[in-house]
């Protein structure tokens, strides 16, 4: 079966969508990613959509689902590389992708993910310390 590959880089799962996804492929990606987060204990998911020429409401909804599901599984999602024409179209379509964090490119997305994963750890350490007190 056709699948979109998920790469692991440290605590981050990296997905690059390079094909015009048909609906089932997008649903499979959503299922694979959630399974992979649990399996690897990943703290972040980076989705590169710079090759995607169309994001319709279905794909938008899948991206939103992935962000929500990974948050529930204690991982953060950042979507990077959206083409300007896609951004314009999404907003006119009525989808502003609430709840999805975005960055301009993979590098900035990685920085954002790393910073928020570090921040999470600090919060955990503080919580642990106050428990010990």
């Amino acid at each position, binding site marked *: 079966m056709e699948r979109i590959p998920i790469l692991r880089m440290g605590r981050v799962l990296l997905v690059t969508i390079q094909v*015009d996804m048909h609906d089932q492929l997008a649903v499979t990606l959503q299922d694979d990613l959630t399974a992979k987060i649990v399996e690897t204990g990943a703290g972040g998911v980076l989705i590169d959509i710079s090759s995607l020429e*169309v994001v*319709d*409401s279905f794909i938008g909804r899948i991206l939103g689902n992935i962000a929500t599901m990974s948050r529930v599984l204690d991982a953060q999602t950042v979507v990077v590389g959206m083409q300007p*024409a896609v951004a314009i179209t999404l907003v*006119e379509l009525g*989808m502003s992708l609430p709840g999805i964090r975005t960055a301009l490119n993979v590098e900035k997305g990685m920085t954002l993910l790393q910073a928020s994963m570090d921040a999470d750890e600090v919060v955990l350490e503080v919580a642990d310390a106050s428990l010990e007190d």
Partner: protein
Amino acid sequence: MPIRSAQDLVLVRQAVRTWSAELKFSLVEQTKMVTAASELARNTLDYGRGGHVTLEMLQEGLRKGLRLSFEDKGPGIPDIDLALRDGYTSGGGMGLGLGGARRLVNEFDIVSKVGEGTRVTVTRWK
């Protein structure tokens, strides 16, 4: 072109992209038209139980356009105004398809008869 499966949606998007590019639509115009086509084709598939789309190049004086007609013989839409409203869905979607597609094109027309089917026609001019 037939709209019978999720794979057909991909083919419809590709065809609309090619035609829009041939008409020298800008990248943003192309993307809007392809996205509108994707929404409407999905409606034909999910709510109309499949159907077909007709692509048509138009020439009116100096201006050129692309017209897409989506037809199905599905259950039809009882209340079109309601179906066009953002956030309303009779299925499991987000309710952005029909109203959203209307905002992405220049002309939008919908004819639907309960029990007979639905035809949605959209046009974008260069």
